[in-house]
């Protein structure tokens, strides 16, 4: 059976630590993939998140995609962000990366991830996605990230994909799902809107939302870079995917402790995950140090995390 590119479960946004000496390359990918691969249902390549300035970071490069394709075990779903600064550039990035896949004879499981409101308004979005999907043989996942849109000061009228627009988008057979990073109310509205498309998935992009009220589709997590097994435990349990509990009391204790570890770490890295998580991974020697500037608050958070979890 061909593995779906959009599995229910834990998708980890792979920590991308730029190599300061070699632009376009990233540190420690091999060890990081090996660290995560047993626990995750899929990996997301999202330079936009890990880049210090979302407005000024490049897309996934051909070399990064090539390297990742050779590193990830076949069958592990790969999500790749293709968001550019305009509709045209996004389509161009998609085409370019598709060429890499063809060149490597890689047929997936892979899905493109895009935050459309980064460069496009709600108006005309279904048409834009029809054009985009015509350029690719892979599925697409829309990313709704109102905080990011707000942060970059986008001049579009709305920070969220409108529910009515999502309903139309979900009718596109190869638009496989949405990652929602906002409030619960909108998430419930999205889920209601796409009910006619049972294969369309609504992932939680907000870790805290998922931990409190888990979506049955799964979660896109950055914290899973630090605690992959704990995140796996919580995700499987939240999605009712794991039903074999010979020791119920032990299971509850395990869930509770895993949840507490995740929450504790989240408290520390929450204000700057893109800076703190790579630094912790470097302290664990999973990636090399890249010399990124850290604030005193970041330093304190890293020390606290290392007190709780001294090694991976």
């Amino acid at each position, binding site marked *: 059976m061909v593995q779906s590119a959009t599995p229910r479960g834990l998708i980890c946004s792979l920590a991308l630590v730029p190599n300061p000496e070699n632009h376009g390359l990233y540190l420690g990918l091999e060890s990081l993939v090996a660290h995560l691969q047993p626990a995750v249902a899929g990996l997301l390549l999202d330079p936009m998140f890990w880049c210090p300035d979302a407005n000024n970071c490049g897309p996934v490069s051909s070399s990064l995609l090539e390297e990742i394709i050779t590193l990830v075990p076949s069958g592990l779903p790969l999500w790749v962000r293709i968001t550019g600064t305009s509709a045209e550039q996004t389509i161009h990035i998609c085409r370019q990366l598709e060429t890499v896949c063809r060149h490597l004879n890689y047929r997936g499981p892979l899905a493109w991830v895009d935050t459309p409101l980064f460069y496009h308004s709600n108006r005309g979005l279904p048409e834009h996605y029809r054009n985009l999907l015509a350029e690719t043989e892979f599925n697409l996942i829309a990313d709704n990230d109102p905080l990011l849109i707000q942060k970059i000061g986008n001049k579009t009228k709305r920070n969220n994909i409108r529910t009515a627009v999502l309903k139309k988008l979900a009718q596109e057979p190869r638009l496989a799902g949405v990652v929602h990073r906002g409030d619960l109310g909108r998430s419930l509205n999205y889920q209601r809107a796409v009910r006619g498309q049972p294969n369309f998935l609504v992932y939680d992009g907000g870790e805290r939302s998922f931990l409190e009220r888990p979506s049955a589709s799964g979660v896109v997590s950055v914290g899973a870079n630090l605690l992959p097994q704990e995140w796996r435990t919580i995700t499987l349990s*939240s999605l009712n995917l794991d039903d074999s509990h010979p020791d119920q009391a032990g299971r509850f204790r395990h869930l*509770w402790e895993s949840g507490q570890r995740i929450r504790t770490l989240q408290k520390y890295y929450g204000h700057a995950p893109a800076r703190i998580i790579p630094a912790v991974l470097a302290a664990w020697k999973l990636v090399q140090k890249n010399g990124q500037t850290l604030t005193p608050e970041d330093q304190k958070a890293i020390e606290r995390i290392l007190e709780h979890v001294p090694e991976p």
Partner: protein
Amino acid sequence: MVRPNKKNIRRGAAKIIREAKDVLRIEAEGIFGLIDRIDSEFAEAVNWIYESRGRVIVTGIGKSGIVGRKIVATLNSTGTKSLFLHPAEAMHGDLGMVSSDDIVLVLSSSGETEELTAILPTLKDLRTRIICLTGNTESTLGRNSDLTVYAGVEREACPLGLAPTASTTAMLALGDAICVTLLNKHEFQLEDFRRCHPGGVLGERLRVPIEAIMRTGSSIPKVQENTLVAEAIKEMDAKALGATLVLGDTTGLVGIVTDGDLRRGLRKYERLLEKPVTAIMGKNPKTIQVKDSVADALEIMEEYQITVLAVTGPKDELLGIIHLHDLLGKGYIKFTL
């Protein structure tokens, strides 16, 4: 106790209220989400149960097991014979309760519950038809059941996956949908419901006041204390309660003559029919107050091993009579609930 109002509302109340509303919204959406998923598989499942000559054996473990027990209760009370099979007990002999005529309804959110997948081969060997309610139709149970009904939800309400919430609510609701559609297919009537709920009907009866069901006026079998036994027998025969009350000229109720008193009188007196009733009557008969309940009457009858009670008013005046059969709704007086 101080009831909360706007002035004394405690800190954190707003958070509690918000979270509770979130939980209810998520659970409601979980059920709404199933509406569009009800399809021909569901209809077929209902038809299989309806046409089955056997029973519905419901099985599940953990919270699904608790939901399963509720589905069994609802099926039974709405006219579909059903039993709960605990998967662990099934492995230790309870599978013997399953026959090929039965339908097995398997409940599992994940569809991978080990205890259930373990009994699957035996159920298949028994040629029992298996219907699976699951949130994962591609799971082991989903794929290996004869019919699979989707019972998944879009979101759970409990943090960290500690306990299934919306998914068990959805499964419960789906179980109700099966029960109600079966009920309608069976053309289940009020009388059928009563037959299935003797406890409920009896409970209602027990609260009924005696005055609502007692026999009054000319229905009361009664004779004066100077009446001959022959006349008393005619009265007993006419009123068919197996007894007659005996009244004094001025003193009201003085005794009771029952079938038992007649038997004992026959052995004692050769010419019983010519004797006055006072010769054989039981003195100071047991009574009950008119405002007392059926439960009180039953208690007295059980304590004294009698079947008839005289009913008196506040001044001990005779107002009626009650028989055990009336209390149970089998006699002259019928209950209408």
